[in-house]
Structure formats: structure tokens, C-alpha cells
């Protein structure tokens, strides 16, 4: 699992059937690389989150048929940017 920061929402109206109507967020890692994660929780931009990857991302989404390889698993209570960058 990784520690990433939510950048913004992502809207895709035309999408794969198995992504259904789940919310998507653009997240960044400590180097600034952007990725897209499924968000079952409702994280806000600026939140530090724990993301689950690999096949566990599908179980984390609540239904193993959902096609995702990155899902937000939790919103971190206390985390600071300096600790994240180093």
C-alpha cells in the first residue's frame, strides 16, 4: 500500500461497464507522478490517503468484478508533507 495525495476529481461519463458509477480521483505520489484511483470513501483534494494496489484493489472496491488496479483504502488522520517527501 502506498501513501498518496488526492489532487482532484476525475469525471469520465463514457466508461467501462464494470467501473459502474464509482468516483475516481487523480492522486499523486511524493515525486509528483499522477495516477487515477477509485474512491469508495469520498476523499477531498489535499487529503493524504492509503491506496491499495494489485488484485487487492478489486476486493477493496467492494466487488471483485470491478476493474481497478488502485483503490483508496483509508484517509490518513495526521501526515505532513515533509515526512512524505523524505
Amino acid at each position, binding site marked *: *500500500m*502506498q*501513501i498518496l495525495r488526492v489532487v482532484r476529481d476525475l469525471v469520465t461519463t463514457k466508461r467501462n461497464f464494470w467501473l459502474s458509477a464509482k468516483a475516481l480521483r487523480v492522486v499523486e505520489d*511524493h515525486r509528483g507522478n499522477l495516477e487515477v484511483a477509485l474512491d*469508495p*470513501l469520498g476523499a477531498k483534494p489535499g487529503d493524504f*490517503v*492509503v491506496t*491499495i*494496489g*494489485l*488484485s*487487492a*484493489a478489486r*476486493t*477493496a472496491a*467492494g466487488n471483485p468484478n470491478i476493474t481497478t488496479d488502485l*483503490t*483508496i*483504502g*483509508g*484517509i*490518513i*488522520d*495526521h501526515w505532513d508533507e515533509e515526512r*512524505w517527501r*523524505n
Partner: protein
Amino acid sequence: MKICQVEGTLVATARIGSLQNRRLLVVKERGSNGKQVAVDPVGCKPGDWVIAVGSSAARDAAGSKDYPSDLTIVGIIDYWDDASGQAGANAGANPAPKTSSKAGVKTDANPSRRT
């Protein structure tokens, strides 16, 4: 399996239900400076050297096939001298290493360490 050192616990109150109330730890993989988060069913302290499994084995190691983990700690290394670990990796450069890096590696599956 990866060799990691535990940095500390991670508090995430808002979490998906299937993560339950398991302890999450921030760990640093040996030889890299990126932080990762692992599920801890064993009970580790900050500073412990641990072994962690990834991919679908991480889900089984966390207790059930449906548990959403991609990195789970499976054992605490009894003795790990990080300098000797590096010497083991460069065995060709060092003709007579005093300790083998693998000699001290033991998993700790003792449930009494659970917290």
C-alpha cells in the same frame, strides 16, 4: 518477500469497512527510500526489521482471501545487521564475510507477540 524496516504506525480513521481495525504500519523497504504501508497481523515495534509479502499472498497472509491488502508483514527478523546484509550482497568483493546475511533470518510467527 521484501525485507523492510518499520517506521511507525499509521492512523486512518476513515477507512473502507473491509480493512477492519487492523494495524497499518509505515515501512521502508531495504535499499530504497520510498515509504510503503503494510498490514501488521504480527505486532511489530518501530525499528524492527520484518519480512513482508506482496501480491495475492498478501491477502491470504492478512487472514482471509477477501482482505484487501497488497503488502502484509509475515515475520519479524530476529537479527538483522544491515551492514552485514550489504556485505552479503557484495560477497565477491569481501573474500571472508564473518556472517552470512541469511544466517540470522528467522520468522516469528509466535502469536503471543500480538498486541
